[in-house]
Structure formats: structure tokens, C-alpha cells
């Protein structure tokens, strides 16, 4: 009798486990999933798209006399309660700046810098490398513009059961030489939901 009950319970448990939510791939092109309180990829897509369109539309990247600006990525501060890799925003922005044909990004300096650019220059005295293949001195191009920004969050109690979470995406483009700001904009992503769901 005991064995029969145990077998029955085991079968039921297996059936329940089998009925669990299956994992599916997200259709990132036309995602119709419900919004979440935390920032997800859709929020970054919207913020990056609106900021890039604002920047390109402003004409701030149009260089007088032609040519392309050299742009370095400065600090993007994450002042949210979430652990965010700010590259989630900046990779898209930088890609579009490059693709616009109006700017080139530098990897020599800034938060998007590539250590190897400097490390390979330390090979000048190495006997293992052909000196003709090592980058010469004074070949790096200094940036003319920097892009920096901030992502921050505000949590507000909306009513007894709901909270409002506001995310601010701010970017600014400044001239290195003059320190003047050529462009800046802000995109707000707001969410309202249950107090039980957390925005971080």
C-alpha cells in the first residue's frame, strides 16, 4: 500500500514537473512580451534609438569643411539600483555614430579604449618584434569630441499598491578643444507596477 502511494506521488510530481513553463527564444525583432520593472533590452533599444536620432538630426556631428570627427567615449555613469553594463547603451550609440559616416570612434583613449593599442607600443625595444611593424611614435589621433553620460533611476511610491520607477538616459557630446557642449539629450523610460516587483 505504502509503495503504491509512493509510486503514485512520484508519477504526479513528474507530470507536474513536465508541465512547467518551457524555455523559448525571445523574438527580439517583434517582442510582444510583457514589460518588466527592471531595464531590459527593449528599453536600451528605445533609448539608444531616440538618442542617436536626436544626435544625428541635430547636425552636431556635421564637421565644418567636411571630414569626420574623432570621438572618444567618456564615462557613462550607472546610477541605477541595477547592475548594468553601460556598453548595452553605448555599443549601439557608437555603432550608429560610426555608420553615419560623420564620426570615427577612438579606441586609444576613454572608456572604450583598447589596452593592446598601448601594450603593442611597448614592444619598440623588444628584440622579438620587427621594429618596422611596431607602431611609430606620435601616430595616435587625439579625439576632437567626447561623448559621456549617465543612467539614473528614481523610485516613487505611486499609491498603496503600486510604485513608479523612472529611468533617465542622458548623453552629451562636447568638444575637447573648447570644452563646449555641441549636443545633449535625455530619454525617460517610465514604469508603473506592483510594489512587489522590484526595479533592480
Amino acid at each position, binding site marked *: 500500500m505504502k509503495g503504491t502511494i509512493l509510486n503514485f506521488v512520484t508519477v504526479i510530481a513528474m507530470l507536474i514537473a513536465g508541465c512547467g513553463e518551457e524555455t523559448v527564444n525571445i523574438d527580439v525583432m517583434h517582442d510582444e512580451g510583457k*514589460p518588466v520593472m527592471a531595464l531590459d533590452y527593449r528599453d536600451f533599444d528605445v533609448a539608444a534609438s531616440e538618442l*542617436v536620432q536626436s544626435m544625428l538630426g541635430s547636425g552636431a556631428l556635421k564637421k565644418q569643411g567636411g571630414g569626420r570627427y574623432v570621438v572618444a567615449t567618456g564615462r557613462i555613469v550607472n546610477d541605477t539600483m541595477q547592475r548594468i553594463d553601460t556598453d548595452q547603451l553605448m555599443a549601439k550609440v557608437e555603432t550608429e555614430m560610426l555608420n553615419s559616416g*560623420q564620426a570615427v570612434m577612438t579606441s586609444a583613449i576613454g572608456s572604450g579604449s583598447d589596452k593592446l593599442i598601448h601594450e603593442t607600443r611597448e614592444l619598440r625595444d623588444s628584440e622579438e618584434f620587427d621594429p618596422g611593424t611596431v607602431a611609430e611614435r606620435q601616430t595616435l589621433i587625439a579625439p576632437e569630441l567626447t561623448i559621456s553620460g549617465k543612467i539614473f533611476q528614481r523610485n516613487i511610491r505611486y499609491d498603496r499598491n503600486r510604485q513608479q520607477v523612472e529611468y533617465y538616459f542622458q548623453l552629451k557630446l562636447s568638444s575637447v578643444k573648447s570644452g563646449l557642449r555641441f549636443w545633449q539629450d535625455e530619454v525617460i523610460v517610465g514604469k508603473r507596477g506592483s510594489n512587489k516587483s522590484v526595479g533592480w
Partner: protein
Amino acid sequence: MKKLGLILIALMVLGFGCYQPHDKRVHLREEIRSDSLDSNIVTRPVVHAFSALLGEGLEITEATTRRNDADLLELHVSGFNKSFQTKRFRYRVEWLDNDGFLIGTKTSVWLPMSAMGKSPFSFKAVAPKPAAVDFRMDTRKWE
């Protein structure tokens, strides 16, 4: 009773006769502007119900393009929300080059937009590169 009806109709006709259209660029919403047939406290529920029955929604009145100072194509879309409800929707603009090929860009994503009831709306999109010569736009319901 018949006389009262006639007086009411006469008052309404006189009321509309006194209505002076304002500058079309300025939009006055219900409860701000003077009453009209669709905003009158008596007729409003009927008109709203009729609008919902007809399934009135958004209408695009104009989609124009121009080249901006940076030689990028700009799309300006204007429309009107014919319904009495605020319509929330998403739109996505795709850009096409001279050969009709799609230009790959991270900016072609579903962007949120909303239009208040019986109100005009407009938005702007900027092409990602000068190679864009045409566009296509799609809309979908805001989930």
C-alpha cells in the same frame, strides 16, 4: 413639449452659428474649448458610443521627407486620432538605399508613441546614414 424641442434645436443652431473657428495650428481639447456636438454634456455619450462602434482610430495625414543639414533623410509623420480614446502604439521606420535595399541600423526598433483622443500627433525619424533615399514604416499596438 414640441415647442421645447424646437427651442432647444434653435438654441443649438444659434450656438453653432456663433462658433468662430480658431487657428488650426492651435488645438483645444474637450472641456477647454466651447461645447460642440461631440463635447456637449448631453450628446457626448451618444457621439462617443457611435465613434467606438465605428471603430475610429488613427489616420496618417502626411508623411514627408527632407534632407537635413547633415545630408541625412528626415521623415516627418503627421496624423490625427479620430477616436475619443488615447491611442498608444509603436512604430518602426526602416530605411532603404538607392537600390531599394534595407539599410541595417540599430535605430530601426519599435518606438513608443501615443496620441490623445480627437487630437493631432506627429513624430520625426532620422535616417542613420546619407545613403538612405526612401523609407517604410510599420505600426503595431502598444503591448
